């Protein structure tokens, strides 16, 4: 790796801006991810900012099973994000649909719709687990392309 490439990679790993999207979660995972912003967990330590616009974001954090209504939305948001982009599936629902089996309106997990780079299981995910997932993903970003 050249020096510049190394620097760029390092900067990417130090400045992950996230976008939170709820594809039908029960709220619990949402509030737990939101809790990461607050003093006890303070995800800004990693340089993370929560952005409102997909155009500004690097990491898409998705909670909830994908519902039919939100499927097209999540695909569109994913496409709006500039490369390089990563997706974190937070919560059992997002990793596999979890408890919502047999509900006619959900898909079995986020990876059936868009590529996913990190799975966090938990119902809901503990904020610490989100932090850990982020830092594992960032390490990966710094070292190799995920």
């Amino acid at each position: 790796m050249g020096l510049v490439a190394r620097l760029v990679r390092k900067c990417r790993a130090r400045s992950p801006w996230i976008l939170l999207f709820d594809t039908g979660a029960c709220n619990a995972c949402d509030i737990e991810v939101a809790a990461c912003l607050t003093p006890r967990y303070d995800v800004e330590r990693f340089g993370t900012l929560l952005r409102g616009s997909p155009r500004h974001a690097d990491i898409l954090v998705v909670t909830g099973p994908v519902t039919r209504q939100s499927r097209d939305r999540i695909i569109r948001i994913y496409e709006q994000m500039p490369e390089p982009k990563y997706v974190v599936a937070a919560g059992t629902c997002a990793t596999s649909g979890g408890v919502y089996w047999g509900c006619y309106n959900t898909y079995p997990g986020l990876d059936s719709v868009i590529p996913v780079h990190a799975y966090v299981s938990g119902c809901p995910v503990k904020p610490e687990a989100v932090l850990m997932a982020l830092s594992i993903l960032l390490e990966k970003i710094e070292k190799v392309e995920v």
Partner: protein
Amino acid sequence: MKVPGYFLAEALRNLFKKRATILYPYREVDKIHLPEGFRGKIEFDRSKCIGCQLCFRVCPAKAIKMIEDEKGKRPVFFIYRCIYCGQCAEVCPTKAITLGKAFENIALRKEDLEVR
């Protein structure tokens, strides 16, 4: 009484107080709040299991599958489906299942979360 910037005093006071943040990943691991009875990742004791299938039948998330091994029927758990409800542990007649304290069930590939 309206006082613009009423919060200033409190904010400044907190500047000199200890931060509320736990510098968690990798550091200050012991400060995490993990009480007794926390419902984390499933721990399964093969030697206790009698293969009664109760856990498989109650699981609300279909996270358990029964397979056959050399000693007979046993459950396997798909952690990526598990909702950490603890129902299987509650129903198991021999207490072969307990919920541990591992809460960081993270994987970059889904298969890594598959079978425990």
